[in-house]
């Protein structure tokens, strides 16, 4: 057991994220709501006022005949950029598919988002195979499970490599001497792999928080190694096995030469209507899971409705705070700092 005393004993705070999921609101609300950035902005500002670590923005994969993306009616990375300008502390994580993007473009978009947000951006990649969007990206045949996994792993490696192409002190801005950057501090990636070849570097400066935060979800058996090697945050679904999985992940991380604290495991929870009716029960449940070391915190799934967020922030959060489980406020501006991740440390 690598974690227990290390993490929790030091009084590490419970990490809290909220996930905005399209198509989860009652259908009458969904039908009436047009694309309204203002409402989403208010929602995220409220989450920031409550001191939550981050908001996860889903990116709907359209499925033939399925629900349309009417609750979060924007593409996730553009929405993240817009939200970054109306917030200043909270982390902003956008889902983006490895099938819908090419690694250079995706790395560049998120690097740019991280500069726009002053180091508060994260990329949420899912390892769930056979994504439905393949059919809209000239991949009618889809991917075999194994191809998808190898491709996703290579993709993520390229993105993280590109994020490190410029040293933090590469830009000199020396107007008089005519030296804008130090050529020694720009690094080509020169990746040649099974699915991609990418020379680099990115044409975006180094992230203010070292690199954008990488969030992975949908990990099954063989993906655990990938997660342990590269992820900053891992989202887990099943409460019953989460503890064992979290242990496993951290053990693997150590085997890869990382600090066990370099990965934060968040458990997905969808408290729903129970939040308003029995906030004590919810708080007890979160505390119990947290104290039993089965996760570092929670990703709370909710529709992007202020009333639902209010229930959590006004009823559940104060109880967690009174019990000393969450930080009262942000200590720094960067998402890595909120999450207790330290950039390169532990690698």
């Amino acid at each position: 057991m690598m974690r227990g005393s290390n993490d929790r004993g030091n009084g590490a705070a419970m990490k809290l994220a909220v996930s905005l999921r399209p198509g989860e609101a009652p259908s009458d609300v969904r039908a009436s709501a047009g694309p309204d950035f203002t409402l989403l902005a208010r929602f995220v500002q409220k989450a920031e006022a409550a001191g939550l670590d981050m908001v996860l923005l889903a990116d709907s994969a359209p499925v033939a005949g399925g629900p349309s993306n009417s609750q979060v009616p924007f593409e996730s990375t553009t929405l993240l950029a817009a939200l970054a300008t109306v917030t200043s502390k909270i982390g902003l994580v956008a889902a983006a598919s490895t099938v819908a993007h090419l690694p250079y473009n995706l790395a560049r978009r998120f690097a740019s988002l991280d500069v726009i947000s002053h180091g508060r951006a994260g990329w949420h990649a899912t390892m769930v195979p056979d994504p439905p969007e393949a059919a809209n990206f000239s991949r009618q045949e889809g991917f075999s499970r194994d191809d998808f996994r190898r491709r996703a792993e290579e993709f993520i490696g390229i993105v993280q490599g590109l994020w490190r192409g410029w040293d933090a002190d590469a830009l000199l801005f020396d107007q008089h001497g005519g030296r804008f950057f130090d050529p020694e501090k720009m690094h080509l990636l020169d990746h040649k792999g099974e699915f991609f070849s990418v020379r680099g570097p990115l044409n975006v400066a180094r992230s203010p928080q070292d690199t954008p935060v990488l969030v992975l979800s949908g990990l099954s058996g063989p993906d655990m190694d990938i997660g342990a090697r590269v992820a900053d945050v891992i989202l887990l679904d099943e409460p019953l096995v989460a503890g064992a999985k979290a242990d496993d992940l951290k053990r693997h991380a150590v085997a890869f030469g990382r600090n066990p604290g370099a990965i934060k495991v968040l458990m997905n929870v969808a408290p729903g209507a129970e939040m308003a009716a029995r906030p004590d029960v919810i708080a007890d449940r979160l505390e119990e899971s947290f104290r039993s070391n089965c996760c570092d915190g929670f990703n709370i799934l909710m529709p992007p409705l202020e009333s639902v967020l209010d229930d959590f922030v006004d009823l559940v959060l104060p109880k967690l705070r009174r019990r000393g489980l969450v930080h009262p406020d942000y200590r720094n501006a960067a998402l890595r700092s909120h999450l207790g991740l330290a950039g390169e440390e532990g690698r």
Partner: protein
Amino acid sequence: MSGRQMKLGAFLWATGHHIAAWRHPQAHVTAGVDIDHYIQLARTAEAAKFDMIFCEDAAGVREANVNIASQTSRSIGFEPISLLAALAVQTSRIGLVSTASTSYNEPYGLARTFLSLDHLSGGRAGWNLVTSASPIEAANFGSTGLRPHADRYERAREFAAVVTALWRGKLDGVSGPGHDGRSFSVRDPLDLQRSPQGAPVMVQAGASDEGRDLAARTADVVFTAAQTFEEAKAFYDDLKRRLPAYGREPDDIKIMPGVAPVAAETESEAREKYEELQELIPDDVGVALLSSYLSISDLWRYPIDGPLPELPASEGMQSRQALVIEQSRRDNLSIRQLARHFAGARGHWRVVGTPAQIADELEARFEGGAADGFNVMPSYFPGELYTFAALVVPELQRRGLFRKEYEGRTLRHHLGLKRPA
């Protein structure tokens, strides 16, 4: 409103359009990592009633020679779609146009992203379609060499058709056929609502024969580079003549040549300002930039004070290359002179003078049927955008050539474009 008025774009680029802009004391040297700087620029352009701000794009560091690159500010900056999405909610009227390449994107993702930008901005988004010719970009996308020109355009035509169909809700694999073409397949309609302006505005900049043809077929706005009135007029007439073949009217396309103005209260001040910038260009940077325009790598081998050598035709930017060569022969310029000349405005039209002189020049091209408006390329930011907004825009307004207030809320409305069915 009186008669026809010109359209104006504010072309935002790094520290400025002049290659040495970043070294100028009034340039904001950290522009490429400062979002607040861009918000300020966008608001300045909006206060001056520009139709749009425009961002170019390349998916890679532009200059292969790292020592040359390190002497310019263009190797790092914001990715333009995320930049415009941030600006969308910090402005309320001005159009937001970004370049994106058909060579390294998929139509479904691009259509969806620009439509999202359109929703965030309430109908102010536009896409500038380009095809990529640069081997530097290609190296970031796993391709070994350049595709010949025709293939790039074939892909672009299919790409544009799919994007247009998606934006107009005319591509739906559920209730009708999806798209299954040579380069792309798409099954579903977009999962976002229809654009507030019908569809984002389509912009294009390719000036080769195939580029013009694609523009005549699909573009709402065309950016172009033209040094002289005659070149501008010839391009304008040629493009508008191609429209009827696609069932379109001359007014359906707005042609906006680039202009690099250097304005000051007096002509001598304007000249001084220009010379001051030219002095800041290192020779090797100027020659490298010229080399990239000519798509040749060994220009530095030739004597810098000698003439341009004879050059083979290239697969890259054919029209831009022809422009450079023509100018060098016409004005009998040495490599150094040509390099400095092009470094300043990158082959676009440069006008140095008082606000009245600049307005005269713009008016002559606008009234002479060589332009519907201009894409303004300030030498350095923020200073020269402020100068244009404070000096030249009021002069154009006084002459009734430019709006004093926005009359609509969408980019299509500003540009006087029809709402697509």
